[in-house]
């Protein structure tokens, strides 16, 4: 790697501003205009002033660094300060550290820039470019070196070596890929993806405080976030969140005459409907229930489902109705599931309908 212009040189054209340096479509492009001196170049007092400004900025930076250390030691992280003109507070430690440190850094930069602009020479310099390509001779020489070496190695003639090497090189990355196999805990388990904790008789409890729900607890126009009672038995390391991500439901209740259709005959209990809380689009939890229109809106991508009409999609990118969970009550009068969902919950996947 060589730079093509070993010695920077300034062009004499730069001095006059009238010399022609290039031609374009028959036109002359004039050279650099003459250098105009700055105030600081001609007025020593202006130069002195600029010098003081720069030094002042560097000193301000040093002062801010000192203040930073004081603030770090003195201000507890829990203190707050009022924000002027806002009816708000702001964390004292974070503000003091940020402002002092920020200014300490900024002033170094501002001082250096001011120094360069006002006091360092501002006469433009011209450096020549050279074509980036090599000469044909250089190319030929390079090719020759390569082919000589290739011949000497015998790579071309010794077929068996060449082919066995290519084979070995082709195979050796395989272990690197194979070892990634155990990123997954085991073979893809479609059953796990398609099933949830719900089963016949699973009691419905509220989320997050786990109270069992009686039908009377769900008012008309109300919504209750819920989960299966046995979810709490699943430990965190056993995949509590995985189970939760599939089993979360919402209960809504509407006047029975408002229910236009359901995914299964009589899957409600006295107007109480249970739907998966996981959007069928890309899986956001979905609970923006608009009780007058019975619409359920997803806050992520605005898919809208009509819960009074089998949870069908009425707007947005989701392609599938929200799965409904058939429910009833047990002998103690608490709401229970009648079975698992009859379809996988959450986003679609390739094998979903297999």
């Amino acid at each position: 790697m060589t730079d093509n212009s070993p010695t920077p040189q300034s062009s004499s054209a730069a001095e006059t501003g009238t010399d022609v340096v290039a031609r374009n479509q028959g036109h002359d492009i004039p050279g650099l205009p003459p250098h105009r001196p700055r105030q600081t170049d001609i007025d020593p007092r202006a130069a002195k002033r600029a010098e003081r400004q720069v030094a002042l900025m560097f000193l301000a930076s040093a002062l801010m660094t000192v203040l930073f250390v004081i603030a770090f030691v003195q201000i507890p992280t829990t203190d707050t300060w009022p924000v002027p003109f806002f009816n708000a507070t702001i964390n004292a430690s974070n503000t003091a550290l940020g402002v002092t440190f920020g200014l300490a850094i900024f002033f170094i930069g501002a001082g250096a820039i001011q120094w360069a602009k006002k006091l360092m020479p501002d006469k433009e310099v011209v450096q020549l470019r050279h074509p980036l390509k090599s000469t044909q001779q250089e190319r030929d020489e390079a090719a020759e070196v390569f082919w000589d070496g290739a011949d000497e190695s015998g790579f071309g003639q010794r077929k068996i070596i060449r082919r066995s090497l290519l084979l070995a090189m082709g195979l050796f990355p395989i272990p690197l890929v194979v070892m990634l196999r155990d990123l997954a805990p085991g073979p893809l388990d479609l059953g796990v993806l398609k099933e949830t904790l719900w089963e016949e008789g699973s009691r419905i409890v509220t989320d997050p405080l786990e109270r069992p729900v009686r039908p009377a607890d769900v008012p008309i126009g109300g919504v209750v976030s819920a989960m299966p009672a046995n979810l709490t038995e699943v430990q965190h390391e056993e995949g509590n969140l995985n189970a939760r991500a599939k089993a979360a439901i919402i209960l809504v209740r509407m006047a029975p005459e408002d229910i236009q259709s359901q995914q299964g005959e009589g899957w409600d209990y006295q107007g109480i409907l249970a739907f998966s809380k996981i959007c069928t689009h890309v899986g956001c939890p979905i609970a923006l229930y608009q009780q007058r229109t019975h619409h359920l809106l997803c806050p992520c991508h605005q898919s809208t489902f009509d819960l009074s009409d089998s949870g069908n999609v009425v707007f947005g990118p989701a392609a599938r109705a929200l799965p409904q969970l058939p429910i009833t009550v047990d002998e103690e009068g608490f709401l229970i599931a009648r079975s698992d969902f009859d379809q996988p919950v959450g986003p679609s996947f390739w094998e979903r309908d297999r």
Partner: protein
Amino acid sequence: MSATVNAGKKAATYVDDRFASANFFKRSLGKVFPDHWSFMLGEIALYSFIVILLSGTFLTFWFKPSMVEVIYDGSYAPLKGVEMSEAYASTLDISFDIRGGLLMRQIHHWAALFFVAAISVHLLRVFFTGAFRKPREFNWLIGVGLLTLALVAGFAGYSLPDDLLSGTGLRIAQGIMLSIPLVGTYLSWFVFGGEFPGTDIISRLYAVHILLVPGIILALVTAHLIMVWYQKHTQYPGPGRTNENVVGYRLMPIYMAKAGGFFFAVFGITTLVAGLVTINPIWAYGPYTPDQVTAGSQPDWYIGWLEGALRLMPNVETVIFGFTISWNIFIPAAVVPGLVFTAMALYPWFESWVTGDTKEHHILDRPRNNPTRTGIGVMALTFYILLWIGGGNDLIARFFDVSVNAITWFLRIGIFVLPPIAFVITKRICLSLQRRDREKLLHGRETGQILRLPHGEFIEIHGPISVEERAVLLSKPEVEPLALPPTEDANGVKNKKAGRNRLRSRLSNWFYGDNIPLPTPEELAAADAHLAHEIEQTTPVLDEATALRVGTPGVIADEGVLHDDPKLVAAARDAARTIEAERGENKS
């Protein structure tokens, strides 16, 4: 002082004895860079990246990339006793129990937003000025790679604290993975170590976020800079600037101070912002659980366009032979970004193929001088911004009191209609600007001074344009659409590439067909002579008229007459002198 110089000399000798580095230093320190604010946009990205590395290293000392469940017992009261992952708890500790931790977290996140924003504006500058042309195509390619990696790094970082927004983002990412035909389910199964969310993803993303992606970014940034160094920086057209030189200032001392100072300025401003303005208040979002969500669940800004694409896409899903294909997710989240990045990466080769341009370019294009490219850029930008708006449609609905559904429908249609309109308008504006440039060369600059001719006609006086401007205008490159090669050769054999050639010629015409050429040297000489004559004619009259103080400034009424009669001009001049003289007398 001399002691320092001596010590420096000794050190330099010591190094040079071992590396023969003198020549390298001589060349490097004397290297000339052109000076323009728009050449520093990439530097903002570079410096933000350095700030990210520094602050990120600090954060790794306390962050625990673990999804083990803990009960929070730190100093943030509203979350005391809540179950959460160790990742989230340690992020809370960094924010509330480690002095300066919150500042560093906020510096890190702000710098990440600035990093991608700076890359974007740098990319726009490079695109619109044609800096990606030969010999710099591969540096453009590296830049596109850097942008892609920046998005990956940003998204991984956004997901690490395991707060409610992080988790929601990961959930969406997993939904997108699932939509990939054939392999999607496997991909998700491997990435998450089983089902979503599992207990592995944070530690895996951590490795990606702090080692893999930044490592590659660092390598690519280095290559990016070496290429700039080696191929030298482009420059804008102007007097003294040619395709064979670089005009600017030397690295030592000017750019040591300017670029070094700029690093401190960027770092300082980022730190100030981090000290004053909250970003990503993870404590307010709460820990992630898959059944909670907040209104306004959005990604960081640079993923916003993909979020918008997801929101706008109509709900198409098909089941073929029992296999489910979620077009509603796969198209906006995988196909669209794939196409956008591929088109962006290949654009330099597309343009050079269309225009047949194989020359080296070190003088930048003014955007107007390449109307089709500029139009394509604005079209792409419009497309991007519309998707971006889509990504925030719920907040726009809330603050401008319109229906989310209406915005979504507007964008669903607008995404097809508005970008082509933007293209046409931009191209027209560029061509008008080219015409104005030509006018300027031929008729000079409009001075804003109006003259009334003896017969009552008003004309505007033109003055000569500055040397700098003239040099810029005259540097306009010559472009010509490719001619259509014959479809048959002399022997009547059909050219196999005829179809391709026709397409290429058509595209080339579309690219350059309506270019406004520079005036020929003859036209320009005539125009110069005319202008000189006009100036010669009007200047004395103007002087007199100004002396006579007739009319409002800049507008010369009755006495300021333009005509060819030197006698009248002389008379007017005499009259003016008389008046001046009288005034002088009155004053004394």
